[in-house]
């Protein structure tokens, strides 16, 4: 085992490989930062250029891209509330309020270090579980995936304690939206009102760009002035303390990294769930849950650690069975195929050195990207001082264009605009957006897996009690639901 890790490492440690790794990392950082582009676009662009490269170099390049994307995504999430990639939408929740308070440097510093540490913990976990990867993937069938979706929805809706009713309403609306489109089970087209664009449902990335970036631009245009409310107080120099914050909140980093690793390894779930779940679990565990959403540094650290940890473990279902967890992995699958590597259980045996090389490349790139991110933090944080009358039109235009570029579909622009307006009203009337996002991601999967479970068991619900993983998940759900009853009643806000 150890010699395989080392030979994977050796393949990477050559000038050519390192050069391509660095190149990929820079591209990832850049593509991650622009809403709508992300790793999938970067990899799609690079794939044809790898024809002439040997598989090791091609994988170093791909690993570089995938490792660099999360840091790029966090930069714009924090500074502009524009999530560069879907998972970094969770970073917006507390990262942007910090930027508004003039603490962009602190948030970026914490994000960078959480990124790097999350990546390293993710790598260690994946190296440990790779030998049993096949069995791990096979543990999660429809019953487990259904309960997991329920668990995710409950964690997130109960995390917005104090706003449970409105959280549930936002989640309900998210589920209703998630049901739009072609139903895989019955082959029925639902709620599409004859619009072909909606056959595939409402696309997640355009919706997130709307809910966060565009909604924020509407707010900013109404408020006027720069993003940082008190321009005089902007402290871009506090990056070092941001770095230290991550070490101070080490349980948050560990929890985030583990959540990221586990969620990433489950086929078809993906990174957005990982980052939002990690965020919500941190809110739940906190003594001051009400400080989240207003600029709590742990609200930056938790999703960031999860995003990078999941990057490594996402490879497991992709490599072991060719089931990609998201768009980025899907394009990566194409790259593997081009280099004659057929994902499947045999790949884990036949191409071990390549796989370990790739994992090291991912880790190296993520640490490197964090470092570059830190270097860039200072000049980039100045964006928060820019006049909103210039910033708002440019960011709005780039946001809509980025959402078009996701899959070159003009319908995405409409989705982004509609969700922008919806997001603005959700802020205005105080409905949490986080439950809606998670419902959007998990809604149709929950439905599909429930029906599949019913088909497996002829409608007998006891199937959930006869499977070990299901039992663990059920216990988790029960504990979560019971927790508010056991917990001391929260201090009630007195009506003004």
């Amino acid at each position, binding site marked *: 085992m150890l010699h395989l890790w080392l030979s994977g490492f050796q393949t990477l440690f050559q000038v050519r490989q390192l050069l391509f790794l660095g190149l990929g990392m820079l591209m990832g950082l850049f593509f991650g930062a622009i809403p709508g582009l992300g790793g999938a676009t970067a990899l*799609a662009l690079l794939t*044809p250029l790898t*024809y002439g490269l040997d598989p090791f170099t091609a994988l170093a390049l791909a690993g570089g891209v995938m490792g660099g994307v999360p840091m790029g995504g966090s930069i714009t999430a924090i500074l502009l509330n524009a999530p560069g990639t879907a998972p970094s939408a969770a970073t917006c929740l507390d990262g942007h309020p910090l930027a508004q308070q003039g603490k962009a440097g602190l948030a970026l510093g914490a994000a960078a270090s959480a990124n790097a540490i999350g990546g390293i913990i993710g790598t260690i976990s994946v190296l440990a579980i790779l030998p049993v990867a*096949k069995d791990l*993937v*096979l543990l999660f*069938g*429809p019953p487990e995936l259904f309960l997991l979706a329920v668990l995710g929805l409950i964690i997130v809706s109960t995390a917005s304690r104090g706003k449970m009713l409105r959280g549930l309403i936002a989640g309900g609306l998210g589920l209703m939206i998630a049901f739009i*489109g*072609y*139903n*895989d*089970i*019955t*082959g029925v*087209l639902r709620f599409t009102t004859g619009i*072909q664009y909606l*056959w*595939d*449902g409402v696309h997640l990335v355009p919706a997130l760009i709307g809910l966060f970036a565009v909604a924020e631009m509407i707010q900013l245009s109404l408020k006027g002035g720069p993003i940082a409310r008190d321009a005089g107080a902007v402290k871009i120099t506090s990056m070092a303390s941001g770095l230290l914050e991550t070490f101070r909140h080490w349980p948050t980093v560990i929890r985030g990294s583990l959540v990221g690793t586990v969620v990433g390894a489950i*086929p*078809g779930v993906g990174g957005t769930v990982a980052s939002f779940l990690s965020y919500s679990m941190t809110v739940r565990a906190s003594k001051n849950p009400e400080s989240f959403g207003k600029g709590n540094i742990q609200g930056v650290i938790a999703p960031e650690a999860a995003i990078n940890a999941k990057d490594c473990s996402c490879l497991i279902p992709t490599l072991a*069975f*060719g*089931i*990609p967890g998201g768009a980025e992995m*899907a*394009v990566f*699958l*194409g790259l593997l*195929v*081009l280099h*004659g590597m*057929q*994902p*499947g*259980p*045999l790949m884990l*045996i036949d191409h071990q050195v390549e796989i370990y090389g790739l994992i090291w490349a991912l880790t190296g790139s993520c640490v490197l990207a964090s470092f570059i991110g830190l270097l860039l933090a200072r000049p980039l944080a100045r964006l928060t001082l820019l006049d909103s009358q210039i910033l708002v039109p440019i960011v709005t235009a780039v946001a809509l264009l980025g959402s078009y570029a996701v*899959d070159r579909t003009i319908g995405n622009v409409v989705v982004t605009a509609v969700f922008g307006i919806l997001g603005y009203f959700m802020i205005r009337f105080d409905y949490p957006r986080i439950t809606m996002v998670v419902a959007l991601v998990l809604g149709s999967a929950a439905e*599909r897996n429930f*029906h*599949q479970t019913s*088909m*497996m068991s002829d409608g007998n619900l006891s199937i959930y009690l006869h499977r070990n993983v299901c039992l663990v998940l059920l216990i988790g759900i029960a504990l979560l639901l019971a927790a508010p009853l056991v917990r001391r009643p929260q201090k009630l806000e007195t009506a003004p």
Partner: protein
Amino acid sequence: MPIAITRRHFGCSAGTVLSALACPEYVSAAEADFPRHNIDFIIPKAPGGGFDNLVRVIAPSLEKSLPHKVSVVPNNIPAGGGGKGIGQLYRSKPDGHTLGLIDIPGSFILQQRQGGAAFDLNKITWICSMGRPEPYCVATAETSSLKTVDDLRALSKTRPVKFTSSGPEGTAYAATVIANKILGIRIQLITGYKGSSDFVVGAIRGDGDAVIAPITALRSLQKSKTLRIIATFEEKSSLPGVADATSLGQPDLGQIKLERLVGAPPGLPAGVKAILASAFSRAMGDPQAVTLAKKLDVELYPNTPDQAAARVRDSSAFFAKWQKYLT
């Protein structure tokens, strides 16, 4: 298809106004310097399956074989059971810059289920087949106690045998229903998986008792001892020791095949069709594509537009016989 016609007509007349040319000249000008820009190769399936692999294997060689240097960009549009991707192909400008890989007969079933509003396969311009018509196989998990078709039959006497499959569209679903009718096995389908890798893994995991899938989706899993192929629908089995259509006494099974055909929008000019057909034929003979295909266990199969159209007719005629069980 009133919408499609209006759109295309509109596109044509916009071109007319802009270039001050009549429609036919506009088209023939396009023929002369084809391809002018990147070719969008629509894959109406999720990434990671046989369809996706085929397009990615051929794309680089196709680029080399076209008269002008452009990129061939694989574009997965799996929505609506593939209906969205085929619909998009159908409505694209018929200038050769949009192609698609269509599964037959699954797409006929899809067209019928979705009311024929989005596309009409009988009007698609067929360019060529891409892979050899692929036989289906029945497989069970390596750990399963079901090791022969007779085991499945015996089980079906006590309860329906559960098969994992895609949604009600798609050739795999049709193959599962028809093959089991022929074999006399009562079945219940567990549907809704996202693609062939997904429902095959479902069977390995034990979501269902067995799975029916194209042979290339199963071969490497058998090699890795994850899954056991218990019968192939080939006339003569290519896998040693595995039952085939002949030994099962059901030659009709041999007709259940997956055709993967390259199609272009209706009304593709003959000149462009000829350029594409010859480019595909050269690309499929390109050593780079052949080596890559071999590594991935994919078999390339060049033929002419007329042969491809004939395959579509044969295949749809066979499946038409079984239609009543499919909708």
